[in-house]
């Protein structure tokens, strides 16, 4: 674990030595606050609730997470540092998990910076903190799954922009699975699978404060699956 955290720390350091971390740290709190207070109907509703705030998260993750993950492997490939990294005595799983944890840490920090929003709401009226904590947990789980997907896509290319576009496209599709499930042409069994796989629908039930084991397992399963794919891509490149 120590060596995994070494990679995670390096990711943090590189992110904070470049504009990436600051952009992500600024983007999430700014966008959530702007959508929630200025563009939403928070003041019209006259209710101290964070439901609308968390409802924004799946949509915000679509552009923000790929921006966080696009350089994870693509930049290593482009600059040739992947060779240096893989020549150090690390296991592939330590590298993959380390990079994932580094990106997840940045996202968690960025989410922590949005805490000003619920604090403001609590200052304006009585806020039930249970759903808020559930909402943050759900956002972190959703973010972890999106990061695993983004990291895998980043390992497939040496172009960060391509990695970002692929990430946005795939996450967008994953958020539209529920809508696709309701289409008339989709058989019922497939519709159920699509509905159960929709990133956003799973999120909404957790964000209401209902922590279901199935939802947690779904997100953790996605993380494990895409991290394994990421590792396989690296291993396969050795034999190409």
């Amino acid at each position, binding site marked *: 674990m120590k060596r995994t955290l070494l990679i995670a720390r*390096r990711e943090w350091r590189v992110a904070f030595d*470049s504009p990436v971390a600051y952009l992500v740290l600024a983007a999430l709190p700014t966008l959530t606050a702007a959508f929630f207070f200025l563009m939403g109907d928070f003041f019209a509703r006259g209710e101290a609730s964070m439901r609308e705030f968390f409802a924004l998260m799946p949509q915000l993750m679509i552009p923000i997470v790929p921006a966080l993950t696009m350089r994870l492997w693509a930049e290593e490939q482009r600059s*040739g540092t992947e*060779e240096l990294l*893989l*020549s150090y*005595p690390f296991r592939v799983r330590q590298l993959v998990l380390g990079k994932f944890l580094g990106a997840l840490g940045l996202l968690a920090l960025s989410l922590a910076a949005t805490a000003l929003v619920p604090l403001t709401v609590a200052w304006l009226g009585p806020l039930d903190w249970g759903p808020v904590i559930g909402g943050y947990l759900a956002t972190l789980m959703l973010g972890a799954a999106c990061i695993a997907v983004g990291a895998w896509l980043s390992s497939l290319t040496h172009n960060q922009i391509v990695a970002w576009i692929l990430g946005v496209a795939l996450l967008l599709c994953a958020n539209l699975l529920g809508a696709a499930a309701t289409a008339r042409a989709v058989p019922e069994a497939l519709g159920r699978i699509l509905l159960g796989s929709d990133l956003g629908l799973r999120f909404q039930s957790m964000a209401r404060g209902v922590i279901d084991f199935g939802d947690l397992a779904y997100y953790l399963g996605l993380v494990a699956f895409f991290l394994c794919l990421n590792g396989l891509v690296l291993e396969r490149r*050795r034999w190409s």
Partner: protein
Amino acid sequence: MSNRAALSRPAPPPVVEVEGLEKSYGEVRALDGISFSVDAGSVVAFLGPNGAGKTTAIKILTGYLGADRGRARVCGHDVDRDPLAARSQVGYLPENNPLYPDMRVCDLLRFAFEAQRTGEASAADAIDRAVSRTGLAEVYRKFIGACSKGFRQRVGLAQALLHDPPLLILDEPTNGLDPLQVVEIRQLIRDLGAHKTVLVTTHVLPEVEALAERVVMIHRGRKVADGALAQLVQVGTEGLWVHVGVRGSETALRSVLQQAGATEVTGRSSPFADAAACAVQARVRDADALPALAAAVHAAGLEMVEFAPQGGSLEMLFQRLVTPAAAVSGVAPEPSPEDLGGRA
């Protein structure tokens, strides 16, 4: 310790052992059953033209690529079966020296030390030692992207040295440097070679002559020569070449030289301002044949303007082994791989 105890101690394994390595990229065969070994404490040049397979072999040794067939070991550790132990014995400077431009030199060195740490050595001591050896003090807190190419090369060498590995693998270490930086980096590698085994890949011949005691030469994925530099040059450029220039007919000169015992005579462009002068190069078995050659030219009434014996050179050997044109142009018959230690 008694002599008997010393004798019964098993000899340490070679630092590098490569047996029958094969690697293809699709239809292209990059390595075709190459084998060699490197003992401790030597600077070995891994020489070959661009595309010969040097970097592929190095990437297999450092664990970045897997071989299709064959085996590679570093300090006795198989790079496939025991990759972490093998990699921890290597300090590696990849071709083109890829580094993180957004990291500071100090941060990269600390990360590289922690990534390669093998014992209880303190990071501060190891980094201080590497920084002082590579002369990085003045850019220690700079971003790598802001350092000159020479300093970046030094950073690449420093990260390879940090964990004090027994083997340094340097892939084209002076590639793209200006002449002054080349001299500096070569001096640094010579200094490192006094304490470590260094495997340097290069296609720059003066670099080999400046750095290495031994040469492993490969071409089209096969080993074509392997041995001490001086020995290879001697065997590979068998015989002694002499540049001869006269005022008179080249045909007459060639005829005289052949009758006087030259085993081979080839033309060369005339270095003389005098249009009546011509120049050839002749090969004789050894230096003892030179007086007869000079006397025959004199006796034929040709006015000699040059008679300069040439030493064998690595360049001649290289051309003979890797340039098909040289082999067929009659410069000299190609020596067999067995003569040069190459059993490809």
